[in-house]
């Protein structure tokens, strides 16, 4: 009989709530990869774990807050950013990350997203973008490409989607990048960079959703969509921001990279007297 070796521990045990596994995500989903990148960034960061806080909204990506073994807040649909604003302003020593999805952040939370970027408070926002509302079964959202099929756009979406990079750049974020869940090194690096970057940082991570989005749009499996990322992704840092829109189905590049890295002054509340 072969020796069976049990690992004593997993390197992420401390940072992921293993007692909450298995997670709820579907086979082929990319959110777990994105969460793993976030967990690695926390382990690699010099920031004390005690000061790491994650806030999420509602949806598949919103469940990340429940799996991270740090102070974690799973709030209401769309309201993760303003909740994070309160945490950060109340205790500036906290390193507050918002981890949520495209529907939560850009539709119902869209106003908070642009005002968060405008205000430029020191927050890191990780947005997994799977082009649909996955948890509720694949409805169209603000990132669903024109003419893509979802359960609420059965004849093809009649709406134009947001180009999140362009939106966040225009709104005033200090750091804006886009990768896919294939780009784990770059994602970890950018999350770490965003931790240290003053002001509002936004990292968009494209992520397959074979069950919610892929099956209706000819990407039957997560692997298929990942393959597409590998074939189509191009560094797009030289491109005009307005050209960075995404349509997986079109024969055109998916532009990735660090698009905005600037040093506009981050939001600081006015203080006159001695600290209380």
């Amino acid at each position: 009989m072969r020796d069976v070796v049990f690992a004593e521990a997993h390197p992420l045990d401390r940072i992921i709530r293993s007692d909450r596994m298995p997670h709820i995500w579907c086979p082929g989903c990319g959110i777990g990869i994105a969460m793993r990148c976030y967990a690695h960034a926390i382990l690699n960061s010099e920031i004390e774990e005690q000061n790491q806080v994650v806030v999420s909204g509602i949806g598949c990506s919103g469940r990340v807050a429940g799996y991270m073994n740090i102070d974690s807040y799973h709030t209401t649909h769309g309201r993760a950013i303003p909740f994070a604003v309160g945490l950060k302003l109340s205790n500036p020593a906290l390193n507050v990350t918002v981890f949520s999805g495209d529907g939560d952040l850009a539709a119902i939370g869209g106003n908070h997203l642009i005002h968060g970027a405008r205000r430029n408070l020191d927050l890191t926002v990780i947005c997994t973008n799977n082009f649909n509302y996955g948890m509720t079964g694949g409805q169209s959202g603000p990132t669903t490409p024109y003419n893509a099929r979802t359960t609420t756009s059965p004849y093809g979406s009649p709406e134009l989607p947001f180009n999140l990079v362009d939106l966040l750049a225009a709104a005033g974020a200090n750091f804006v990048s886009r990768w896919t869940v294939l780009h784990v090194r770059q994602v970890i690096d950018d999350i770490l960079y965003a931790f240290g970057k003053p002001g509002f940082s936004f990292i968009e991570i494209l992520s397959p959703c074979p069950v919610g989005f892929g099956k209706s749009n000819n990407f039957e499996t997560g692997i298929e969509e990942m393959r597409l990322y590998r074939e189509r992704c191009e560094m797009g840092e030289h491109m005009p921001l307005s050209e960075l829109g995404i349509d997986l189905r079109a024969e055109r590049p998916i532009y990735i990279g660090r698009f905005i890295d600037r040093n506009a002054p981050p939001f600081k509340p006015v203080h006159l007297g001695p600290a209380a």
Partner: protein
Amino acid sequence: MSETGILTGSHFMNGDHACAEGAIAAGCRLFGGYPITPSTEVAERLARRLPQVGGVFIQMEDEMASIAAVLGASAAGSRAMTATSGPGFSLMMENLGLAIMMELPCLIVNIQRGSPSTGLPTLPGQSDIMQARWGSHGDYRLAAYSPWSPQEIFDLTIHGFNVADRYRIPVLLMADEVVGHMVERVVIPEAAEIPFWDRKRANGKAGETFHPFEPGEDLVPPFAHAGEGYRVHFTGLTHDTRGYPDMSAEMHQQLVRRLVDKVERNSAKLEMSDDYEVEDANILVLSYGSTARSARRAVREARELGIKAGALRLISIWPFPEQAFNALADQMDAFIVAEVNLGQMITEVERRVRTSKPVSGVHHAGGAMLPPGPILEEIKRVAGHA
């Protein structure tokens, strides 16, 4: 100004400003809000005052963001509040439920105006009373207080923070435009005389065994703030004592029952009221907020006519002041409810009067303070006074 930033002394001040000074005195250190008449002066005053005491004023993009920021600040350990009116109060209903579910203490001030919809932005109303009780989806209990003067707004702002922290609930201060904008004497005590009830804090060893939603005998769990090393999880989903989601009917019953019982079992401590000329009264006038001022005058004038009227003022509108009401109910022959809405609190009185004794209302849709006249007329009618 004292070292604590508290404006100890006598002031001639409007209710909105008195609310802001109450917040400073209570140690509130974050205000997140969105300007809306007639509550705007609360925000304006705190925009000036909070930076003087090391606190944070932030104007958010809307009322949904305002209450979310307040809850985030509460989770990180601050006393935090927002102030709003009608339409903004409606927008806050969503996260009022989150405050209930996460047990995040906070103070939400509603300076009520004529409603529904945009209604009468600059004029008074008292028509958000049932919304305060039932406005967020689901079963919940909270505390809501209704001040009748600038001094009482100041006092109840402090008390509201204390109650919120003690029971880990959102507390509503349901003032109205009359009280928010009227200017009267407000006496602000020395810092040492201001009551302060701290949150029950987690004091175990930070680690795996800590269950952030394990309640004590009072059904209130000790509070672990963000950044204290407890690695807590808070969610709006139904959750167990660890804070972990548990999608079962059993856990839902257990959690929601506790959140409701937490308030109901402590109801006697949350109730507040005062009475006027009730000793030998056989007609009881119930009212709250600015209307209670008119009720008092109506009762005084009725007394001058020889009618044995008395007044019960609801300071806590939620919970309804059960004890005070029950103590008076038997001696009364009739009940009159006066309020600036078309009949809200009267339903609470009706369901408590389980006899054939008449309950009648003096109602107005809003736009002006209910004057003493119609209340006096109703007292006379009920008394059979010619």
